[in-house]
Each structure stands twice: as structure tokens, then as C-alpha cells.
């Protein structure tokens, strides 16, 4: 199908493109930019005047809840949510039920996702069998089945010997290891940041040191093994400082932040609002400021949604019993735009953090719009504001701390491999 996207503000952060131009899509690929190819005859024309035309968003962490948690969400609903949010590629963590520790499960997931013809799904494999932290998984088999990296999701990895071996093994074959820095013991059972709010509300607390201790361990082991490690969901100011120092030292480490942590802090828990029960916990204002600045100066490489649909049964319970997590696929773009406005970051640089940068971490040739590239495109109105309401979300997860709030950035069209998979 030949699609002509006219007069939009074409932004391709990777190639430094930011100008009004028409994008020509044919046979699932970018056919031309600016001038129509010879003999062009569009089947469909999209008037993108006033809109931004950019690469489809790439979300490094979105829980699709299959297999195992279909009562919370299904692939169908969450893929709808993804493309409604302009996300054309996403990586899903291995903490499904059963965890993604066997090639068969990975293949099934990829197959299911492919048949839906929506966003591209890149499964992240489990680092240890069952995510139990005892034995390594067959990373070779899993990589062959399609795993782009290996992680331990949110499960504690107490055995530093195992962690060391896993990193050595991964380094041997060039596999990527994604780890969320959290000590297995300190702050165990904690549900909120160890600060004034947790003290006042009497909530079991997770000190910042739970993150920094684990970060120090991982950085030290990364230095020794030479593995490509990506740190997931930074939450502390001290953690950002450690990453800055490690990068300055020349270590090949990267990291990300979840979109929610750029905007919220522990005070937002208010009177025990379980929508603000997240992992890692929302920390103090100083931490939030450091995360925002870290993402702006490149210490933090990218933003992800950490999309986690949770049903009412998981949230309409006392805070300490509630399931952590927030829905996020449809908020990745708005929350990134909001962050950029606050930090005075230009739109192309902001978009880089949800397109080119995640692509680089995934090791994919994606997140950009060069001629010949698969046409994964997100067309959005940066000036349109909308109110976050359950009816406005396509995800089955309506659990968000932003309920009732107005956010900027409305996706109008999403294309995956040259097909329009979403229009609004």
C-alpha cells in the first residue's frame, strides 16, 4: 500500500532531520523523503499539517501479561494500547507465568504477537531458571528463539556468585544483560521510599541504599566481565551520580528511567493512594530532580513506560497489600513531552530518548526513518492535550496515578511496517 504523509514536521533524531517534509511509504518501507519517487501514485494520503511525523516509539519495558496473567490483560488489548500510544516496538520483561526461561515460550509469544500485526514484540529472556536465582538459563537457545537481552525482572538476585557467572557467560557470547539495581535484603518488604512520607504513613520502607549498593556491585562486576549491561529504572539521585561516574570512567553501561519517576515523588502517595505504589518506589523531590537532569544530560540514556496493567482487585486494597505498577504505554509520549517542556529540551532530543536510544540498547536498526527502513511511524499532535480517563485508555490496565489529569501529546496515526494500525 502506498501512503503519502504530507506537510508534517518530520523529525528523525538519529539523522538530525527536523523540517517540514512529506514522507512516502511503499511496500512496508520508507520509499522517499521530500520528493515523490518516480511514478508515485498514493493509495492513501494523510494530511499531517500541524503534526509531528517521527519514528515509531520504542518502549524498553511493557508487560503484556501473557502468558499467565490473562485476567489482568491480554496481548490483544495491550497491543492496541501500544499502537494507540504510538509505540511500534516494545520489549517485554520475562516475569510472565511461567517466566520466559524456555525457547518454546518465547517462540509462542513472538508468534502470537506477530499474528496480531501490531507492534513488534522483543521478548527479554530470564537470566536464571524460573527467575529463582539458582541456575542459568540456556541463553543461546533463548537468543535463537528471539530474546534480545536477559534480565531478572524485579526478582531479587542475592547470589552474587551467580550474578558474576551470569555476566561472564553473557559476555562470552555478547549477550546483553538488563538488571534493575535492588539489593535482595535491604528494604525487603518495603513498599515506599525511606523518607518523611514513609515515616508519617507508617509504611515499610526501601532506603536509597538498596539501589546504590546493588548498583555498585553490578558496576564492579561489569568492569570485571566486560559484559554489556543496561541498568533498568533508576530511582535515586545517588544512583544517577554513580552512573555518571561510571560512564566518565569509560565503562560501557547504559541505563533508563521509568516515565512516572520523572514526574512523581513519594509525596504524591497522599493518603495511601495505591496507584502510586510502584517498583522502584517513588522517591524524594531531590531524586526526581536528579532523574530529570540525568535524562537531559545523557547520563540516563532513555525513558520507558514500565507498563504494568493491574486490575482493581490489585489496587483497591490497603497500600501495603496492593500490586505495584502503573499502566503506561499510552502515556509514554505525553510524559516524555511533559518532561522535555520542564527541562527545556528540544523536541528532537526528547524524541531521541524514546526512539533512537532504545533502538541502540536493543541493538536494532530501528527508531529512525532512513530510506529503505521499515516504515514504523508515529504521527502526533504535540499541542493537543487530553485528560487521562479509564475510557480514554485502550489498555486493560486503568491503573494510573495520572487519572483525571491533563497531559500533552495526542497520537493521530501509527504505522507499523507501512500499515496504518491506529488512527484517531
Amino acid at each position, binding site marked *: 500500500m502506498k501512503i503519502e504523509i504530507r506537510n508534517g514536521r518530520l523529525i528523525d533524531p538519529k539523522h538530525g532531520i527536523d523540517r517540514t517534509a512529506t514522507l512516502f511509504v511503499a511496500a512496508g518501507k520508507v520509499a522517499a523523503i521530500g520528493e515523490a519517487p518516480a511514478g508515485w501514485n498514493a493509495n492513501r494520503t494523510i494530511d499531517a499539517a500541524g503534526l509531528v511525523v517521527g519514528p515509531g516509539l520504542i518502549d524498553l519495558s511493557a508487560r503484556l501479561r501473557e502468558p499467565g496473567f490473562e485476567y489482568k490483560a491480554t496481548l490483544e488489548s495491550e497491543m492496541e494500547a501500544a499502537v494507540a500510544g504510538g509505540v511500534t516496538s516494545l520489549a517485554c520483561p520475562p516475569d510472565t507465568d511461567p517466566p520466559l526461561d524456555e525457547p518454546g515460550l518465547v517462540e509462542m509469544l513472538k508468534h502470537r504477537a506477530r499474528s496480531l500485526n501490531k507492534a513488534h514484540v522483543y521478548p527479554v529472556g530470564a537470566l536464571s531458571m524460573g527467575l529463582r536465582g539458582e541456575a542459568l538459563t540456556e541463553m543461546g537457545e533463548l537468543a535463537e528463539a528471539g530474546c534480545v537481552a536477559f534480565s531478572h525482572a524485579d526478582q531479587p538476585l542475592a547470589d552474587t556468585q551467580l550474578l558474576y557467572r551470569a555476566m561472564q557467560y553473557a559476555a562470552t557470547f555478547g549477550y546483553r544483560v538488563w538488571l534493575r539495581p535492588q539489593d535482595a535484603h535491604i528494604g525487603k518488604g518495603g513498599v515506599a521510599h*525511606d523518607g518523611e512520607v514513609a515515616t*508519617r504513613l507508617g509504611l515499610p520502607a526501601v*532506603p536509597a541504599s538498596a539501589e546504590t549498593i546493588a548498583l555498585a556491585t553490578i558496576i564492579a562486576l561489569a568492569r570485571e566481565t566486560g559484559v554489556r549491561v543496561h541498568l533498568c529504572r533508576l530511582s535515586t539521585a545517588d544512583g544517577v551520580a554513580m552512573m555518571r561516574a561510571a560512564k566518565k570512567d569509560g565503562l560501557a553501561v547504559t541505563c533508563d528511567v521509568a516515565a512516572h519517576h520523572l514526574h512523581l515523588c513519594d509525596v504524591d502517595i497522599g*493518603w*495511601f493512594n495505591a496507584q502510586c505504589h510502584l517498583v522502584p518506589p517513588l522517591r524524594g523531590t531531590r531524586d526526581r530532580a536528579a532523574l530529570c537532569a540525568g535524562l537531559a544530560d545523557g547520563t540516563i540514556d532513555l525513558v520507558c513506560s514500565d507498563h504494568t496493567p493491574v486490575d482493581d482487585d490489585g489496587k*483497591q486494597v490497603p497500600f*501495603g497489600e496492593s500490586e505495584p505498577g502503573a499502566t503506561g504505554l499510552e502515556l509514554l509520549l505525553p510524559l516524555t513531552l511533559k518532561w522535555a517542556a520542564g527541562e527545556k529540551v528540544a523536541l528532537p532530543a526528547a524524541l531521541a530518548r524514546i526512539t533512537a536510544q532504545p533502538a541502540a540498547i536493543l541493538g536494532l536498526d530501528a527508531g529512525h526513518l532512513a530510506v529503505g527502513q521499515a516504515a514504523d511511524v508515529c504521527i502526533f499532535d504535540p499541542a493537543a492535550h487530553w485528560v487521562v480517563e479509564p475510557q480514554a485508555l485502550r489498555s486493560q490496565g486503568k491503573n494510573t496515578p495520572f487519572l483525571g489529569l491533563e497531559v500533552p501529546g495526542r497520537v493521530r496515526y501509527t504505522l507499523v511496517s507501512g500499515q496504518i494500525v491506529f488512527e484517531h
Partner: protein
Amino acid sequence: MRNPQLNADGGLTHLLTLEGLPADVIRQILDTAIPFTSIAMRDVKKVPLLRGKAVFNLFFENSTRTRTTFEIAAKRLSADVINLNIGASSTSKGETLLDTVDNLVAMNADMFVVRHAQSGAPHLIAAHLNRTGRNHVHVVNAGDGRHAHPTQGLLDLFTIRHYKRDFRNLTVAIVGDVLHSRVARSLIHGLTTVGTPEVRAIGPQTLLPTALQALGVRVFNDMREGLKGCDVIVMLRLQSERMRGALLPSAGEFFKHYGLTPDKLAMAKPDAIVMHPGPMNRGVEIDSAVADGERSVILPQVTFGIAVRMAVLSIVAGN
């Protein structure tokens, strides 16, 4: 953020925590408790205020003491009292906390007295009732996790006011496991709200929450230093689990540093009073000589507790 405990006219409609309560609401509760202490001394200890009202004691955590005092208080107000001892296992049967509440409201509950192991459970219930338009049903927090025990805080304030008159001249010390104590948190909020100039917390670092200073509390690790010049000493109960959680090596070591003995008591003012929310662990946090001594007001605290709870139930039911 609107205070979920107050209605549109600023009247107390739920009692969830002392934090954020206006000082005059706290004073009204303390003042209203006074006539209720007289009622306790009559032959007929009942008044008809809550006649025909159904008060449900919703206890998800066992507590015979607190439940009994609430039951006595409600019955002395002529209310019908129904006790529900729902162990933590009830929710594992599939019925959520809010489902249980909805069912009981359908049975014409007028008030819930709630004790729960999770901080925030009473807030969740009150928010649910407010959101679903059931403004005539009230929630009184009988203790939630580590967060709050507002009626205990109020009866402690009542006791202090009874013996010491004016909060604005006092130095009050709270000793022991503040980290896990809802009693301590409520008392701290109560004391700072009514203008107590110096509130102290005394304990080892393992048992004091990180951000205590932010609540307006002066922290001491040395008990003798901390007791100097105190008018009121509140001893907290030390639970045996604390020894298993590597927070303390032993009860003996705790008693050595933080147990209230006559010689440590001598560091405080000569007319200082000694309080304890109960039940006491003699020889762990408090020496029997002090617990039974003339400065101890531990038994009067219990009597005042019924009057204070009668005041709370009456005020909340009338709004």
C-alpha cells in the same frame, strides 16, 4: 488535599489519624470526654446518644483490650455493637476488604471501628464510603499497621492534660520502638498540633524511623540525656519479634539502655508522670517499681480511654 476526615462544614465525620486534624477538633474531643468521665461514675453508666445505631467492630488484627474498650464505650452510648473478628485469612477466601464493608453497610451498619495490620486500611474504607455517597457511615481507626492509633493518642493527650494542664509548657519523651509504633506516631502528631514545645524520641537507631526530625521530634539515643527535664515519659511496648528481626540483640540489653528504672526516672522532673499504652512487659521496657510507683498514671489511662472513645464515637456520629 482535602482532609478525608472532615465533612464540608469542617465537622469530624471519620477519625482516621491525628495528623492534619485542626487543633480545635482535638480540643473539642478532649473537652467532650470530661462529662463522659462523670457518666462512668454513676450507677447508670449509659446515655441514649447512639440508641438504635449499629456499631461494627471490624478487627482484622486480634486485640481483646482495644476491642473491649470500644465495645464498652459504644454500649454506654446505647449503641448496638456487633463484633467481627476477621482473621487475615478471610480476605484470602476471596472477599476483599471493600466487599466486606459493602456487605455490612447493606446490613445497616452506621459506624465501623476498624483495626487492621496494614497502614492505610481505614483510609481506604473511608475513601470508598465517601466516593460511593454513603456519607452517613463513619469510620473510626482502632489501629492500622504502624501508621496511627488516634484514640490512643487522644487518651494520652487527655491524660497529660489531666495531670499537667497546659501542653505549652511541657517536655514529653516517647521511649522505645517508635519505628513500629502507631501509638507513637499518633501521639507525636497530637502533641505537636496542640502546641507542645518539645517532643523527644528516645531509642536505638534501629528502632527510630529515618525522618523523625521532619515530624518535629528531637531524637536521643542516650536515655538519661533524653529524660533530663521531662514532664511526661511515655514508654512503648517492645514486641518480641524485634529480637528476631536483628533490630536488637536481646530484651536484657534493651532494658539496660532503655528500660525505665527508678534511677533513670530520677533524671526527669520530680513531678514527671509515667505513661504506657499497655500491655506492659515488666522488666523489658519498664521496671515494676516504676510501673506500680506513685508517678505512674498507667491505670487512669485505661479509665480515660473509655471516656475519650465515647467522645469520639458521639462526635463522629453526630456529623
